[in-house]
């Protein structure tokens, strides 16, 4: 499959439901593929008005193993055919899926040792245990993809850091499905407690450490999220989409800049 013409976001909705499809620049220096955080790069493209951005993004369904296999196969074969670097946005939501809301078994991770605003105790869990958790729950699929990338120039992109409590709540309140789910569980959003930001930040850092290590293992390049994307230990508000986890095109622009700099492009 070749890289198609620039496409608008409205067209994407239907495209994504049927088959993987490249959107973005006709002559990119970087192909971007991955999970939901790739949406920030589409936003980056859309913000440019379909203009001169140096990336193309592979859109497409990844709902089941078959879809994902087809998706990654398309990504790798296109990068190989075009002799282009493939930038992978892998997962990035695992720390949210399991730990955004704080369970009754409160914990923290070194060096986030408190004290905590609420005065509660949060015993430390070894980082090594959480590393193992993320390896098991997130990274086995990445290894499979990277094994299929032999000979390709591959970049693993850092994923967005956690958001401030305010930003998370703002986003969560917009999710009707979440509100209904909370009600079904006998809870209201106001009664929920977010895992403290310093803990979420450490969990996110562990995922980034693992991405960096797996990049080394496969001879790929890891592009970390730069300090300029942070504000008060969270994703800078100007880089945030109004939900609990995702970043916008401005964040993607920063990451593309970092990636192209790393490539020496």
């Amino acid at each position, binding site marked *: 499959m070749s890289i198609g013409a620039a496409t608008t976001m409205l067209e994407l909705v239907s495209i994504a439901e049927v088959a993987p499809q490249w959107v973005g620049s006709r002559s990119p220096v970087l192909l971007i593929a991955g999970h*939901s955080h790739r949406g920030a790069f*589409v936003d980056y493209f859309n913000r440019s008005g379909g203009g001169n951005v140096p990336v193309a993004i592979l859109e497409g369904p990844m709902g089941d193993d078959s879809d994902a296999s087809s998706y990654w196969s398309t990504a790798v074969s296109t990068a190989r055919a075009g002799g282009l670097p493939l930038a992978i946005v892998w997962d990035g939501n695992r720390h*949210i*899926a399991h730990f955004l*809301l*704080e369970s*009754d078994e409160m914990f923290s991770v070194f060096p986030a040792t408190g004290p905590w605003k609420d005065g509660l105790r949060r015993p430390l869990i070894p980082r090594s245990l959480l590393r193992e958790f993320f390896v098991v729950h997130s990274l086995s699929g990445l290894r499979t993809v990277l094994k299929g990338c032999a000979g390709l120039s591959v970049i693993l992109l850092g994923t967005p850091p956690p958001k401030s409590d305010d930003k998370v709540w703002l986003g969560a309140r917009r999710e009707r499905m979440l509100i209904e789910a909370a009600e079904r569980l006998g809870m209201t959003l106001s009664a929920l407690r977010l895992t403290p930001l310093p803990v979420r930040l450490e969990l996110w850092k562990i995922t980034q450490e693992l991405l960096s290590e797996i990049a080394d293992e496969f001879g790929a390049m890891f592009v970390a999220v730069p300090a300029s994307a942070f504000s008060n230990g969270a994703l800078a508000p100007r880089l945030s989409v109004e939900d609990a986890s995702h970043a916008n095109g401005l964040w993607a622009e920063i990451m593309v800049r970092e990636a192209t700099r790393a490539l020496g492009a």
Partner: protein
Amino acid sequence: MTMTHPYQGIPRYSRWKQGVVDGVETSVLTAGLRFRGLQSDDRVFSAGSCFASNIVPYLERAGITYIRTEKRPRVLSGLVDGLGYENFSARFGNIYTSRQFLQLLLRCTDQWRPREDRWRTDRGLIDPFRPGLAFIASSDAEFNALTGSHLLATRAAIEEATVVIFTLGLTEAWQATDGSVFPVCPGTIAGEFDPAKHHFMNLSTNQVAEDLIACHAQILEINGDARFLVTVSPVPLTATATGKHVVVASLESKSILRAAVSEAQARQKEIDYFPSYELLMGWQTPPGCWDKDMRTVTRAGLDYVMSALLGAEGVTSKDQPAQAHMSRAETLSQIISEAECDEAMYGKFA
């Protein structure tokens, strides 16, 4: 004139024929002991040997609060630390000797700092007092923080307790040059044995008694309202370093522990004792309480002990339903993540 003597009028259970030959009533086996029992509103902290962890499910089924201050989110439950660290009020694992328990209490209150407090390996830093932990610190700074957090959690568990139960397991132990007692000999589970640094000790009756009295004092320092309930594990030694036959060494060890409890109770009137040792090692012990290896207590054996501790009702309570795999918080975290994942993202930037 009628002769009188102290044996006239003693309870029926105090006579062998009526108390044993004619049938043993489990409920009276604690008679005459200083044992104040457990109430449904008690909050229990426990520590001790492997046998001590067996009581926890019974307590929880009986509706007694078992304090746990180092619980982990259920989503992490698949990543288990070995050797029973999950089984006690905090993650201190098995504590076999009175000396190790005393030192743990002293560490909780910053009165004792073991000199040999970490073993360095290629994969990280091992805690000699929790050598079976599968997940360990990768730096000195993390090790210090993890240890500090654990000791705080241990202290917090005692602060919350109305009853502190300690089950004595062994008299044999291995200690460092500063007297710090390890749960197991260095080199067996982790670490390296160094004969210049690691020394065998076999606690005497007096040493155990003094330790128990000191433990009681330390517990009261932390929580003046807590009761201290001691038991002796009937489980024999896995191995002895005394050169004696393991049966002889086991009986010697258990006899010392049992005698030490009486000595401690004689000197400190507030220490309670529950006779789990006698229940499973007595002449009246029902058949079927021990497995074929003669070291493992069977379910029937545990039921027997716990019926004396909690009454028959506490043992026959129905098992609680299995806990849901995910907590409500985790369920909602996942819903948020899924709502914002992949296909659902397509509308975000429109």
